[in-house]
């Protein structure tokens, strides 16, 4: 039970990893660009999360969390969520490009 939320994140991370390893989307290989792309989203959405928890919009079941919290009471899983899910989205986007060859606007 403690690992419920973490297991969902692991499913997302492992479920998209084949795109990097076999389709060669080269997203993790371009890790500096990835980190720069994730940073603004993580900052903005962690601030949103903090405000939403404070306003009582949502809450987490402590029995389904590993029990590590960041300042402000954000569970560590929630912090990881804002890195893992956007990274999965970049992988999916680059996979569509790799397969279909459609332009995205950053072609040389």
């Amino acid at each position, binding site marked *: 039970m403690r690992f419920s939320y973490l297991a969902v994140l692991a499913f997302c991370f492992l479920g998209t990893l084949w795109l990097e390893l076999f389709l060669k989307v*080269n997203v993790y290989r371009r890790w500096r*660009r990835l980190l720069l792309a994730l940073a603004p989203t993580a900052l903005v*959405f962690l601030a949103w999360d903090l405000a939403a928890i404070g306003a009582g919009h949502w809450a987490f079941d402590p029995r389904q969390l590993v029990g590590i919290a960041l300042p402000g009471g954000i569970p560590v899983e929630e912090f990881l969520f804002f890195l893992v899910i956007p990274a999965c989205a970049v992988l999916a986007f680059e996979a569509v*490009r790799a397969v279909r060859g459609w332009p995205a606007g950053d072609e040389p």
Partner: protein
Amino acid sequence: MSYTLATLLGVLAALAVDLAVLRTRLVTRRVWWVAYAIVAFFQLVTNGVLTGRRIVVYNPEAILGLRIVYAPAEDLLFGFAMVLLTLSTWVWLGRRGIQNEPRAGRRADRPGERTVP
């Protein structure tokens, strides 16, 4: 402010970043909508687990009450804003020449060869 209103503002802000601030104009491109459709499908699956197992619980006062696979409909807007902001930034960085290579579907050691037939 309710979660409903917050997600509407979030979507508008993400659209403003894509169309006016970074000018990546992803929402005018087919590659964005196909990628987003894939992401949204898996969001319904994984967010359905998060909300169906009540790992995350929502205050009924903060949401409309319309639920899709256990999750508040607002979560779709939240996800849209999050993914659009990320991908707009990703493409903007590439446009500025930051790690544009190796491109997707190319081997780093053999960039002339595609991994997809």
